[in-house]
């Protein structure tokens, strides 16, 4: 899952990015309105975390423009403005959620997961596929009720593939959604993670579509 964090405060931005990375999100951090605009035009993020008091371009203007372009990217406003009128203005400008500082890191990640769930049209917090059960909140994967230990990257990768079972996802798409701006990606990183996943989950789950990418299908 790749997120865009728009926050001008260096310390807060760094902390939010670090917390979300620990939760296996890939986080791009834009420090002002212009940078955020460039990022939003360049890439389709899974969720945007938006501070309102930004230098350059104001957070609400950014949001207006995003929605004017008919983008349905989930947006959570993170701000110190806690007046009801501010919340209303934020939500009416097209935000999906509004979180007032100081917020709890667990609440932030829970809200991100809730938005992703809604975006994918799921009701259940758990993702199930065949004998697999995936809990995005705890990063746990169960196969036939048996817990399977996964690294954060492996977990992100299987979550992406399970988002739309049966659809082929390219290697580039996976790289884009797994790694943020400053993270180095080795050329065969995805291949290595797929290999490890297959070792843990069995070889039949993830199919390679030659020359295109990967897909998950239910065991016959």
């Amino acid at each position, binding site marked *: 899952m790749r997120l865009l964090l728009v926050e001008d405060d260096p*310390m807060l931005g760094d902390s939010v990015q*670090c917390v979300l990375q620990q939760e296996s999100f890939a986080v791009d951090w834009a420090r002002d309105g212009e940078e955020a605009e460039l990022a939003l035009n360049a890439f389709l993020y899974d969720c945007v975390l938006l501070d309102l008091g930004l230098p350059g371009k104001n957070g609400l203007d950014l949001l207006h423009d995003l929605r004017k372009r008919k983008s349905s990217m989930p947006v959570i406003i993170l701000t110190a403005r806690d007046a009801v009128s501010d919340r209303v203005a934020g939500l009416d400008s097209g935000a999906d959620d509004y979180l007032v500082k100081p917020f709890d890191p667990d609440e932030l990640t829970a809200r991100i997961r809730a938005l992703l769930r809604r975006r994918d049209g799921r009701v259940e917090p758990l993702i199930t596929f065949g004998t697999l059960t995936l809990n995005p909140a705890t990063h746990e994967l169960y196969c036939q009720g048996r817990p399977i230990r996964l690294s954060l990257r492996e977990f992100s990768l299987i979550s992406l593939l399970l988002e739309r079972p049966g659809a082929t996802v390219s290697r580039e798409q996976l790289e884009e959604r797994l790694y943020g701006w400053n993270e180095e990606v080795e050329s065969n990183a995805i291949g290595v993670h797929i290999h490890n996943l297959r070792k843990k989950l069995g070889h039949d789950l993830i199919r390679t579509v030659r020359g295109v990418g990967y897909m998950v299908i239910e065991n016959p």
Partner: protein
Amino acid sequence: MNSISRRLLALLLGALTVAALLAGASTYLKARVEVNELFDYQLLQMALSLRDQKSFEQRPTAASDYEKEDDVTIQVWNSAGALIYVSIHDAPLPRATHAGLQTVIFRNAEWRTFLLTDQGRTIQVSQPFKPRQEMSFIFALRTIMPLFFIFPALALTIWFAVRYTLKPLTKVADGVTRLSPSSLEPLPETNLPAEILPLVQRLNFLFEQLSRAFDIQKRFVADAAHELRTPLTAVKLQVRILERSASEDERIEALERLRLGVDRAARLVGQLLALARVEPEAPPVPLMEVSLNRLAEEIIVEQTRIAAEKGINLGTSADGPVSVVGEPDALRAMISNLVDNAIRYTLPGGTVDVTVRQNELAAIIDVADTGPGIPPEERVRVFDRFYRRQGSDAAGCGLGLAIVKYAVKRHGGTIMLGEAAEGKGLRVIIEIPLHPFNSRHAQGQGSP
């Protein structure tokens, strides 16, 4: 009971009573003189009418009316000195010593007598003083009686008059009762008597000051709460990062992050308090003679370590001692924030120079750095509180220059932002009048 209306009522009625009694007494005294004259004249007339009577074998007819009414006693002596007639036998008064009017004491009472000698007979007409006193008393009573009758009506009238007069005061009291610290509406100043108007005006002035102070306080709390949200959020997240750190290296890094977060929150609290102390509305503190060159040296010693860690050359120069009379804490906050800012924004390898000098009128504090400087169009706004310059990576809380501005203002000084040497870096020049508080007291801070 301490009530103005009761006091007024008691005073007015008391004064009225005294006036009535005085009027009565003076009437009595005046009446007595007149009654005396009248009765003396009667005595004389009676004696003269008795003189014309030939014989006293029978009761003199002319006297009988007087006798009944006014206890008049008539005595007649013949030429031999024998009492030949006395109208009341059990009360023979002594014969008066000489002719005419005389006051004598008889049986412990004062009597008025008139003695007349004619053709060998001596006629004495006497009358006690008592009826005269009674008559005077009745006159006096008649004078003051009506006053006592209208007394209750008068009391009632006074009561209403007092209530009516005090009505504006009651209205003001009611108005004040309705006020609360959160709604200090000014009281109406129209239709007020001249005695109460100054009171209401003074109250309104105080209310205005009070509600302004409340507003400032509220704004400060709101600002403080708002500004603390960001560092506190960071601290919350940093704690989480620390909890989730897997390796020792990560933990050390996370702890360092947390330390920075807490430092920042603490610094913000310190700056907010410093700001609250130097704001124009903050109460004045005792003035002291402050040596600015020594203060600058102290601050530089405190900040040398931070400067050295950043590789910044921090130094001071002063030509001789420079002192002003002022508020020590405000002056310290002023210099400390300037030096702090200069170090914060200057890149490693740069220089920060603090110079303290003076001319005939003012002490001059001059802080120059080799940082990025402040472009002229921003040189006014940087003094606003919570204003942060765009793109400045140094995490200040946006209060430093606001504190400096207020501290300078409190000392009646001026502040100027400019470029340091070769048009690069920032140079701040502050001038503090050598006797700043002469002017402050002239402005009358804290009083209307």
